[in-house]
C-alpha cells in the first residue's frame, strides 16, 4: 500500500492506500469515483476501459496506477465535460450509442485518432478503432461520426 499522485483531467490528485498492482481502472473507479471508465474484459482486449495517457489511448485495466505518476491522464469525464468536443458533438448528431457502455472508450480512441490524423479514411478508422469492441454493433455509425467530427474540427479551424 502506498500513496501516489496522479494528474487526471488536468488536476493533481492524491490516491492513498493503493495496492502496488492495482490497475489505473480501479484507482479511477473505486478510489476516485470516476466511473466513466468502464470495466469489461480486464485483460486489455475490449477497450471499454480506454483512457488517454499523454494523448495516447491506453487500456487502464492492465496498466498499474503507480506507473502513471507524472503522466497526463484524460478520462471520458475530462474530454469536455460540456460535451462540446467535436467527437462528442458528432457522436450525438449521429446518435451512435445504443447501450452506451463502450462509448467512452470509443470516443477517446476516436479523439486520439483525429489528433494524429485530421482526415482519416475508412481504413484509417477501422485500423485505429479495431481495439474497441461494441457488442451492440454501432460500428457503422462510429465511422460516420468520426468523419463528421473531422469536418467539425476542420470547420472550427483547430485540431480536435
Amino acid at each position: 500500500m502506498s500513496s501516489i499522485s496522479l494528474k487526471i483531467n488536468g488536476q493533481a490528485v492524491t490516491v492513498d492506500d493503493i495496492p502496488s498492482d492495482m490497475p489505473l481502472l480501479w484507482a479511477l473507479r473505486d478510489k476516485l469515483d470516476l466511473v466513466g471508465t468502464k470495466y469489461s474484459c480486464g485483460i486489455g482486449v475490449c477497450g471499454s476501459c480506454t483512457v488517454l495517457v499523454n494523448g495516447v489511448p491506453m487500456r487502464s485495466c492492465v496498466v498499474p496506477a503507480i506507473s502513471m505518476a507524472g503522466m497526463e491522464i484524460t478520462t471520458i469525464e475530462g474530454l469536455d465535460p460540456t460535451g462540446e468536443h467535436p467527437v462528442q458533438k458528432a457522436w450525438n448528431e449521429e446518435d451512435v450509442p445504443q447501450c452506451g457502455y463502450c462509448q467512452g472508450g470509443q470516443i477517446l480512441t476516436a479523439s486520439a485518432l483525429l489528433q494524429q490524423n485530421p482526415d482519416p479514411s475508412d481504413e484509417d478508422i477501422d485500423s485505429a478503432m479495431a481495439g474497441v469492441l461494441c457488442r451492440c454493433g454501432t460500428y457503422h455509425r462510429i465511422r460516420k461520426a468520426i468523419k463528421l467530427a473531422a469536418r467539425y474540427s476542420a470547420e472550427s479551424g483547430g485540431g480536435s
Partner: protein
Amino acid sequence: MNPLEQRTMIDRRSFLKVSILTTGALVVGCGRFDTEQADETAGDPWIANLYVRIDPDGKITIVSKNPEGGQGVKTAFPMVVAECLNVDWKDVSVEQAPLDDRYGRQVAGGSRGTPDGWDDLRVAGTAASYLLIAAAAEEWGVAPEDCRAGNGTVVHEASGRSARYGSLLQTAAGLPVPDVEDLDLKSRPEDFSLLGTFVPGVDNSRILTGQPLFGCDTRLDGMLYAVFEKCPVFEGKVRDANVEEVGKLPGVTHAFVVNGTDDLQGLRSGVAIVAGTWWEANSARKRLRVNWDTSHSDSSADFERQAEALRGQTGEVLRSDGDVDEALGAASQIVESSYYYPFVGHANMEPQNCTAHYRESGQLELWAPTQNPKSGRQLISKTLGIAEDQIHVNMTRIGGGFGRRLRSEFMAEAAWIAREIRQPVQLQWTREDDMRHDYYRPGAWHDFRAGLDEDGRMIAFDHHFITFGANGETVSGADLSPRHYPAGLVPHFRLRQSLIGTNVPTGPWRSPGHSAYCWSYQSFFDEVALAAGRDPLEFRLDLLSRSYGETQLDRQRASDVLELAAAKAGWGQRQLGADRGLGIAFHFDHGGYVAHVAEVVADGSSIKVEKVFSATDIGPVINLSGAKNQVEGCVVDALSTANLEVTFVNGAAQQSNFNDYELLRIGQAPEIECHFIQSDNPPSGLGEPPIAPATPAITNAIFAATGTRIRELPFSRSGIFI
C-alpha cells in the same frame, strides 16, 4: 405525487387520471383499472402505465417505466407522448421510473415495449392536449373545435389569441376528463410530425461525458465491493473453502460461503469475498481454494454423439399437415440437407452486477441493470424471506441486455451479501464469471427433406429438429413453434422433434429461437430453390403466394419486404464479379417483417461482408434513429455470433473472455442500408426481428460468392473466415 385533487374516468379499455400538484403542475396518468385486484384488496386498483407532467413553466416530464438497455425505449416512448401532446421535443425531459407495481409490466423483452405502450402513450398525450385546448376555449369563451394546439401552445386563429400550455393548467384540471373512446388518436404515418424523424437518445449527454448511469456506476456512502466465486462446473456446490485465510488478505473485510438454493436460476452455492475496492476483492480470489462438489459432466462432443444417434429416429411429431411420406414418394425431386448451430453466450459489455443496501429496518434497496426488475424482486423475496413491499429496486441503464438480464440471480447474490455484511455493497462479476455462468442460447441440429413437383414447387417439407430438453419439454430458449413459417405454406408439412438432456443453463437470447433456427430454414430454402433451378427470391415469393390453412404471418407484408430489399440491392439487375455474391433471406417474428440482402466479396476462404440492404415492416417507425440502430445492431450481432461458439467439457464452459470469444470488430462490420415500409398497422418492436434473417442472408451470399454452402456454424467449422 401529492395530488390535491384527483378525478378519474373509467373506461373499458383504459382510463385516465388527472391531478394538479401543489407546484401547480398538471399530471395526466393513463392506465388500466385492475378489477381483479379491486376484488381482492382494499388498495388502489389503479395501474398507471405512464404519467405525463406539465409544469407551469411549460416543461414536460414523461416517466419512462421500462428498463433501457440500448433498445431505445427511453427515447421512443416519450416521443409518442410528445407527438400526441403537440409539444416541442426540446421541452420534454424523461425520468426513469423505479420498479413500481402501479406501472404494470416493466420488462425489456420480447420486443413488447412498443406494441404494449402504443395505445396508452397516445391516450395520455392526446388527452392532455384535449384538456388544454378545452381549457383555452373555456377561458376565451370559444368553441374547442375552433382552437388547435402545436408547440406547447393553444391558438384560436379567428381571434388571434394564443396561450402557452403552462398558463392553462389550473383551468384544465377543473374540466371533465375526456372519454378515452372520444379521443382521436394519431395512427397514420402521414399524421406525424415528430414520429418517424431521427431523434438522438435522451441519455446521450450523460453517456458522452461519462456521467454515472449504469448499474456498476452506482456509488453509495460506505459502499464495499464484492466478488462471488461459483463452481465452473454447472450446479457444483461448495464443500468447503479457505475463507478464514482469504478473509485476512489485504483490503478484505468479509469472506464467507453462501450455501445457495436448488433454484437453478436463483442463488447458487459459492463464496463471497468483500473488500474496500473491487480490485482487492478480486485479487483475494486468486488465493481462494474451494473444494467443490460436482456431479455433472456435459460435453459438446457427447452432445454431438447423441444427436447423431437421434438422427435416424422419428422423434415426436409436433405437427403434420397432409401426408408428407406420400408426397415425398410422389415428388419429382427431393432435396435433403442438415444444419447445425452451436450454443452461444450473451456477452453483455457490462458484466452482471448489482448494488444492494440492507437496512436495519429490514428494508432492502437495490440498483440493478436488469431487464426484468419484478422477477428479480420476487426471487430475492423468496430467497431471503423479505416481503416484496420491503424491497425497492432502482433500474439503472443496462450495458447490454440481449435477454441475459431477464434472469436475476446476480440480484439475489448482491442482496444476500448485503444482508450478511449489513453494509452497502456492489457485487461485480468478472468477464470470466459472466461467460462461464451465462444462460446460453441452445445449439441444435436440423435435418430437412423437401419434395418438389414438376414445376419446382415445394409440396412437401419434412423437418427433424434435434435440440435440448427432456420429457417432451425443450430447455429455455430452444423451442420452435409448430405454427411458424413455413407452416401453412406447404401442403404436406411435418415437424418432428428429438431432445437431448442437458444441465447446461439456457435462456432467452435476442429473439429466442428465431435468431438460431431461421438460419437453417432460409439456408435450406436457398438450396431447394437452386436445386429446382429457380431464383432464390422468386422461390420465396412463390412460397408466400399460396396458403394451406392458417399462417401466422401476413403473406403480403412478407412479400413486400422481400421485394423491397431485393430492389434496393439490385437483385437480378447487376453484373457481379466472380468473387462477389448476393444472398437473400426473410423472417417474421415478434410482429416484425424483415428481409435482408447481403453482399459479400470473397478472397479464397476469407470473406468480407461489404453491405447489407435491409427492408423492414414494423408498422409506423417511432424514432428513425432508434429503428435504424436496431436494424444495424442486429445485422452486426448476427455476423458476430455466426463466428462464435460456446463449447463444454466436463460440465463447464470452455470460453471465458473476449480473447476466446471474439466479438466482431469494426473492420469486419458491413455498411448497412435500412429501408422501412411504413403502414398504419399497429407498431411492433424492433429489438429482435432484424437479427434472424441477417445470418442466412450472409451465408447465402457466401454460397453465391464461393460455392461453399455453410451448413455448420460457427463459420470456421465450414472453413470460412470473416
